[in-house]
């Protein structure tokens, strides 16, 4: 059974009510296929423009996931 770690920051952490969780992935799981599952549990996430990173690098929704990946889900950045 393969798991990934999902990380939230700022507005997505508020929406998800947590900063980190573990999710089980299927063999052909992508970043994009993970999102509806996250939104189903945390509807407020669905109202936001989301960006993704896998293992600390920006990633497209098409990116395939493998066991142990760290998937970060966040809104457009606003540092500076």
């Amino acid at each position, binding site marked *: 059974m393969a798991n990934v770690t999902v990380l939230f920051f700022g507005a997505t952490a508020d929406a998800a009510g947590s900063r980190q969780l573990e999710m089980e992935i299927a063999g052909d799981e992508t970043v994009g296929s993970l999102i509806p599952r996250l939104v189903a549990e945390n509807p407020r996430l669905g109202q936001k423009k989301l960006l993704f990173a896998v293992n600390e690098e920006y990633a497209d929704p098409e990116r395939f996931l493998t066991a142990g990946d760290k998937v970060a889900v966040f*809104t457009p950045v*606003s540092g500076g």
Partner: protein
Amino acid sequence: MDLIKLTTDPIDIASVARRVVPPECGATVTLDGYVRQFTRGRETLYLEYEAYEPMAIKEMEKLIEAAKQQFEIANVGIVHRLGKLDIGETSVVISVAAPHRKPAFAACEWLIRELKRTVPIWKKEVYAAVEHWVEGEKEL
């Protein structure tokens, strides 16, 4: 020597600006970004900054690398504050040292624009009665 740092301590801009000076240079351009009291007429009480720290460090390293490819510059310092910031406190300092000042200005301006676009740091503005995370920066 380049400098990249995320810190919850107040930032001394001179320590960033002077840190990057090598002997063949003559100019350092520094951007000091700080907490504005009034934004679109609304009064900010304080800000909170949060980062995806390891990724933010990597993205800042990439920016410095890219800036050195594009501009004739020597060293870059980028320090970003995290946590709670009061009005007027420095949130970010970017210093660029170069043999000549023109590329230092151009690189510093490019770096702050790209930092606001790509480095995973988020700002929460806390007003008198409400607070919200800023999702993307208008002024790119």
